[in-house]
């Protein structure tokens, strides 16, 4: 589904992704972790080309992203992206947020798109918040609307960039629950997160990154119990003890 081959990226002189090789299968849930500045967000932002990379090959659902003639708009419509800070459209209600792309990108009829949006909002447990504006919702609710917004496009892949990092602790659970459900339904997911409970429960694979390199990859249980590298061991001890 997603295939990185020797992908390299620089921000000016800063080498932020080094020789990334990674293969994500359909239905697989991959958690990406690592210290801040390790390139995890950049990595998943490459998958829908929110970030360009300079060297290497990347195929997403068979589409070559290193090829400049690739239609990015079309590709992005097939990939849901959930931001740390939600980035809902503040001038629209929750329902309009979810229905906008189906109407304007998928060319659905407004009534159909709104029915779809109601369905997706119900799926993330917000059926009663359809007419609320983002500022009238809690952080956890906003993030669930953002997930519904992604799902409304029936994406083949969902990407999550630290979806719970901006939330108050008591709201993290409600967002993770939605993600767990999504994973159990067979969605292909790449999740940048430090929620190790989530990783243990649903990830098929955990990837550890440091300084732009993919340092270690393994099944969650093995990774946490028995990290292969010192760097990963250090990281795990830090996030598990703090």
């Amino acid at each position, binding site marked *: 589904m997603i295939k990185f081959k020797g992908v390299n990226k620089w921000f000016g002189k800063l080498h932020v992704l080094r020789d990334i090789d990674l293969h994500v299968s359909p239905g697989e849930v991959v958690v990406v972790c690592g210290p801040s500045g390790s390139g995890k967000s950049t990595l998943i932002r490459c998958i829908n080309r929110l970030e360009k990379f300079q060297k290497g090959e990347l195929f997403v659902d068979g589409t070559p992203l290193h090829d400049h003639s690739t239609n990015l708009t079309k590709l992005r419509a097939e990939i849901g992206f959930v931001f740390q800070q939600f980035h809902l459209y503040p*001038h629209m209600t929750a329902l309009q947020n979810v229905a906008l792309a189906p109407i*304007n990108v998928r060319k659905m009829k407004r009534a159909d798109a709104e029915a779809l949006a109601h369905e997706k909002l119900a799926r993330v447990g917000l059926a009663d918040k359809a007419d609320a*504006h983002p500022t009238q919702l809690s952080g956890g609710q906003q993030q669930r609307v953002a997930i519904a917004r992604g799902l409304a496009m029936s994406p083949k892949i969902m990407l999550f960039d630290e979806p719970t990092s901006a939330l108050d602790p008591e709201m993290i659970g409600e967002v993770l629950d939605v993600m767990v459900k999504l994973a159990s339904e067979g969605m292909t997911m790449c999740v940048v997160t430090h929620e190790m409970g989530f990783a243990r429960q649903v990830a098929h694979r955990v990837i550890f990154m440091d300084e732009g390199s993919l340092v270690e990859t393994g099944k969650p249980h093995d990774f946490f119990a028995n990290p292969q590298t010192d760097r990963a061991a250090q990281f795990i001890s830090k996030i598990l003890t703090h």
Partner: protein
Amino acid sequence: MNEFFIFFQTIIPELLQGTRVTLKIAGGALFIGFAVGLPTALIRVYGSPWLQLIVTGYINIFRGTPLLVQLFVVYYGLPDLGLTFSRLTAAYLTLGLNSSAYQAEYFRGAIQSVGEKQMVAARAIGMSRFKAIRYIILPQAFRLVMPSWSNEMISIIKYTAVVFLIAVPDLMGKAKMVSSRYFAPISTYIIVALIYLVIVGLATLILRYVGKRFETPGLESMETATR
């Protein structure tokens, strides 16, 4: 007082004729200013570097020179280059282009304060740049621009007064005629000032009403948010 009232009745029809011209020029200038200013702002934010340079130059020229000088250049200067305009056209054109430069800056500020992240969110879900601007950026920018746009509207209404200097029979032009005909500058200009005040007041009320209609939780203009 009675005398003033009779004088008022005598001159008001003529002043109202002028008022109509003033309103037309102000409305036309604001419309031209919007029609030219918004695309200018979009180029200023999203255009290629050399296009940005051109529109920045345009904005700076109109914001950096006196309106009266611009009016004289258009009406008295451009005919030398073979471009002759009627008085009224020169008035619309000068005030309109002048306003477009200011409106461009206000729209640019509003667009930039909507923020790049809204654009990223729209692009990430598969919307084209154009659609993102149309459905995500501009609807928010229009709400944010309200307070400064309202100032621009007030300025333009008042600045129309300069057009009497190229003999356009606007409110100010009519006032000039009336006051010298009756040798009553004080009474005339007090009435004229009141008329401008009423126009500005009504226009502000209308705009505030429009702003209220489109008010969205969390997107109040700063003015209302801090009230």
